[in-house]
């Protein structure tokens, strides 16, 4: 019925999508058949419904034919539902009086028999006619938005995203679990393709973070739990005790001097040592020492308290306790980065056994001017300058059988960079690279690679290495060169493994807390691989950097800025609109059995113990319908998708 209580006049518009649909579906016949269908007042076909003239056609006919509802038979609603809703709005209809019959993805693209496909298309359109007869006009649900963002992870992606959001005038909480911000980029020596020093280009941004009036930096913090919905999240953040007062600490280093406990330094990937009380690296932000409780001998009065006694400004506080802080934010950007796949997984390369077989990040530290060797290229075992280095690409990448099926994207480039920088340090050294393919897709990447080969006189051998082992103080590499058809056995002083990137440890746990999804490899899933690359599927969550998949710094930064822009767009809205097609409770039918409460994945339903029935938080309900299917009394029915509608659709589909 339309609003006047009369039978609805329904229009059907069948799209050819060029030949995408028309080649497999007889679109003219669909339009003709529908013309005869009860309730259909008008039916036609057109080559591109989404084009301007196509939309105009819908608009004109809606007015001319006094249509109450419109069905467009075309591609998936994820693509053009909004286009056609806007078109009918111009004709004064509600957006809820448009339905999309997907006859492309669900028909023409997946079938090979034109006759059968055409019949299926007709049935699908019919079923939507049945549905739309009962569609009601709904008003969007409006909610307020908290204009304050949280960014999780402070590598280059999190730093960039936080700065860009803060510069738009919004407050940002930047949560980092380590003692300092910086992530992996601060560990790098120089960066391809321009070879600028990583620390030189990164530290200004880090300082800006610490100074920005809109940024609240929370290092040594971790997200504990989260509740709420887009625009209105409540987060609980755990503050880990660092046992040092950040503000009071003058970074004099007296504590470090006296601390008796020495442990491997993670910033240098274990190539050097640090004390239990330490500064991660000289430019660390915040500029404060941190006491690592896991390596500390035990806090006073149990055993040692040397550092506290040595600290002249009394910055060390053994009584600090873990704290939980609650904050409200409107949007969350996840920038948790990556880990390198462990060399342990490639037993045949001996990375765990031989000190002089290192991974790419270790080699970055060896190359770095601030690294454990003070910028001299020395090998870890005996400090000798390596006269020959073998670089092995695709270690663990592109190996669906044993390791990761994907290409890690950056290792071809950083291997070229490593070979080139090595030659800068050791001009008479020999650099040999074993590769399967060299992938240099980025801007000026190919030129960089070719320069490495030509100027660095680097020998690239096309073959995957099978075995690396030690003989005396030489490392022996068994590889091959498929271009000449030879097995290659060679000696080296050092071997650098271009290990695959993999998801950051702890990602699954974080994602569970946030209730957002990842792909099969553990990388964060974007809402659409082409058109929504920085949004998570769940509203209010954005993603950037290597948490989303392997990428270099330029791409990371671009994605972070894009995510920040998306957060800005969200905050620019006066109110947020929530889809009203939710599942309310029919108070008369509800028995209060609570079955729906348990199946709801969004915690949108709860028992009102006074009334003895379930009530719905309209903003939390995503209209997934899990409860509607589960409710034994028929009290839970999705708006515009009631049982009645579903049964009429089914019979329209099943009718020959």
């Amino acid at each position, binding site marked *: 019925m339309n609003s006047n209580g009369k039978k609805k006049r329904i229009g059907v518009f069948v799209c050819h999508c060029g030949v995408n649909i028309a080649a497999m579906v007889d679109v003219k016949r669909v339009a003709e058949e529908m013309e005869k269908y009860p309730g259909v007042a008008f039916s036609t076909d057109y080559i591109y419904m989404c084009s301007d003239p196509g939309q105009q056609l819908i608009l004109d006919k809606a007015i001319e034919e006094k249509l109450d509802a419109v069905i467009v038979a075309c591609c998936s609603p994820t693509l053009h539902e909004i286009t056609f809703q806007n078109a009918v709005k111009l004709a004064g209809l509600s957006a809820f009086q448009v339905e999309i019959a997907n006859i492309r993805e669900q028909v023409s693209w997946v079938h090979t028999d034109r006759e059968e496909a055409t019949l299926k298309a007709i049935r699908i359109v019919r079923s939507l006619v049945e549905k739309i007869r009962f569609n009601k006009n709904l008003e969007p649900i409006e909610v307020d938005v908290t204009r304050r963002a949280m960014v999780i992870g402070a590598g280059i992606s999190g730093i960039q995203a936080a700065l860009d959001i803060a510069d738009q005038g919004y407050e940002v909480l930047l949560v980092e679990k380590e003692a300092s911000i910086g992530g992996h980029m601060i560990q790098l020596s120089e960066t391809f393709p321009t070879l600028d020093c990583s620390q030189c280009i990164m530290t200004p941004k880090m300082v800006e973070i610490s100074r920005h009036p809109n940024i609240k930096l929370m290092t040594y913090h971790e997200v504990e739990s989260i509740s709420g919905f887009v625009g209105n999240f409540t987060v609980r953040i755990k503050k880990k005790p660092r046992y040092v007062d950040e503000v009071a600490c003058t970074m004099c280093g007296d504590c470090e001097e006296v601390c008796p406990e020495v442990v491997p330094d993670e910033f240098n990937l274990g190539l050097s040592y640090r004390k239990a009380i330490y500064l991660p690296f000289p430019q660390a932000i915040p500029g404060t020492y941190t006491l690592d409780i896991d390596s500390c001998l035990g806090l006073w009065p149990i055993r040692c308290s040397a550092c506290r006694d040595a600290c002249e400004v009394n910055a060390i506080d053994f009584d600090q306790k873990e704290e939980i802080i609650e904050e409200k934010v409107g949007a969350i950007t996840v920038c948790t980065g990556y880990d390198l796949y462990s060399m342990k997984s*490639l*037993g045949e390369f001996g990375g765990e*056994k031989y000190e002089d077989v290192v991974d790419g990040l270790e080699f970055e530290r060896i190359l770095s001017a601030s690294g454990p060797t003070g910028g001299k290229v020395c090998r870890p075992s005996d400090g000798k300058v390596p006269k020959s280095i073998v670089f092995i690409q695709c270690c663990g990448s592109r190996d669906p059988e044993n390791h990761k099926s994907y290409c890690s994207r950056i290792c071809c480039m950083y291997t070229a960079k490593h070979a080139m920088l090595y030659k800068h340090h050791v001009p008479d050294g020999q650099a040999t690279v074993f590769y399967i393919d060299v992938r240099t897709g980025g801007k000026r990447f190919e030129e960089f690679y070719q320069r490495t080969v030509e100027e660095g006189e680097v020998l690239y051998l096309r073959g995957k290495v099978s*075995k690396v*082992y*030690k*003989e*005396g103080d030489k490392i022996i590499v068994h590889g091959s060169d498929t271009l000449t058809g030879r097995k290659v056995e060679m000696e080296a002083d050092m071997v650098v493994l271009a290990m695959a990137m993999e998801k950051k440890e702890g990602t699954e746990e974080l994602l569970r807390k946030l209730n957002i999804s990842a792909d099969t490899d553990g990388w964060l899933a974007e809402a659409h691989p082409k058109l929504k690359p920085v949004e998570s599927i769940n509203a209010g969550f954005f993603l950037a950097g290597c948490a989303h998949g392997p990428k270099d710094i330029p791409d990371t930064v671009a994605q972070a800025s894009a995510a920040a822009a998306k957060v800005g767009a969200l905050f620019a809205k006066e109110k947020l609109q929530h889809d009203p097609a939710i599942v309310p409770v029919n108070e008369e039918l509800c028995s209060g059995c609570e079955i729906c409460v348990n199946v709801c994945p969004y915690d949108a339903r709860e028992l009102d113990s006074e009334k003895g029935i379930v009530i719905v938080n309209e903003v939390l309900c995503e209209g997934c319908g899990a409860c509607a299917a589960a409710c034994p009394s028929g009290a839970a029915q999705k708006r515009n998708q009631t049982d009645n509608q579903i049964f009429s659709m089914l019979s329209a589909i099943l009718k020959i």
Partner: protein
Amino acid sequence: MVNKKTKLHYYPGCTLKEKTTNLDNTTYAVMDLLGYELIEPENWTCCGAEFPLTEEKIVGLAAPVRILRQVKLEGGNEVFTVCSFCFNVLKRANEAMVTDPLKHKRINAFLKDDIAIDRVTGEKTTDFPEYNGDVSVLHLLEFIRDEIGYEKIRSLLKRDLSKVKVVPYYGCRLLRPKGKIGIDEPDDPSIFEEFLENIGCEVIDFPFKQECCGSYLSLSMPDAASEASYNILRSAELNGADVVALSCPLCYYNLDRRQDRIKEKFPEFHEMPVFFFTQLLAWALGVDEEVLGLDQHFCDPRSAIGIDKSGVEI
């Protein structure tokens, strides 16, 4: 009091009854000390030595499946081997019966017409049940680790092997093909090391432990085999080992019995004693020297375990 022994199926394989009786004898000796009575499946035949790799040659599965079926008929649900080749063939054949319905069907159809004499009743049987891969095939190293336990081994040690600097040599057949067959990770194995440590040896790590020794190429391409074996023994020596421990009679042939031919090709080669792991275990458990069959070796291994030329322990 007579200790009752546990009955256990053991498949020795042909080579052990002919050329490497030392491996067979020491297996019997140690298993006896560990409390097992070994049963060889009635009328066992050669397992075929090589698992057929193509679909066309599946008749090669008949022999191993027949052996496994026999174990089953005799009431066994596990069988162990010490020869790596036999282990590999039996385990792969067994696995094929579980995972490959086509092979299962074809082999069972083929074996249906077998005739045998029932051990208990003495009657002729032709009525064989289908074999479904339900006997578990173990290598003795696995059996020791998982069922006997190192603790028990350690408690029974009689001799000190701490001066024996040994490399474990796995070769191919204990570890590969990768997947369900090997007794450990193909590129990062540790079971053999653990075994040798637990019998008191000083274990030396070396990078050629999973490299192929040349296998049967020693017949068809003797030079290729010599080089492969040479690489292994040389690496063992470079890493400071005095002896090699292994479990395969063919590896033993290539690495010990062919040392003269290795030397012909590589004059700088140094001889090195090679032991079956069961010989070392037997020695550690106090078994007499004669049982070890040390005179069958090309490179005299006596001094490596502290026996002088006249056979006296030093």
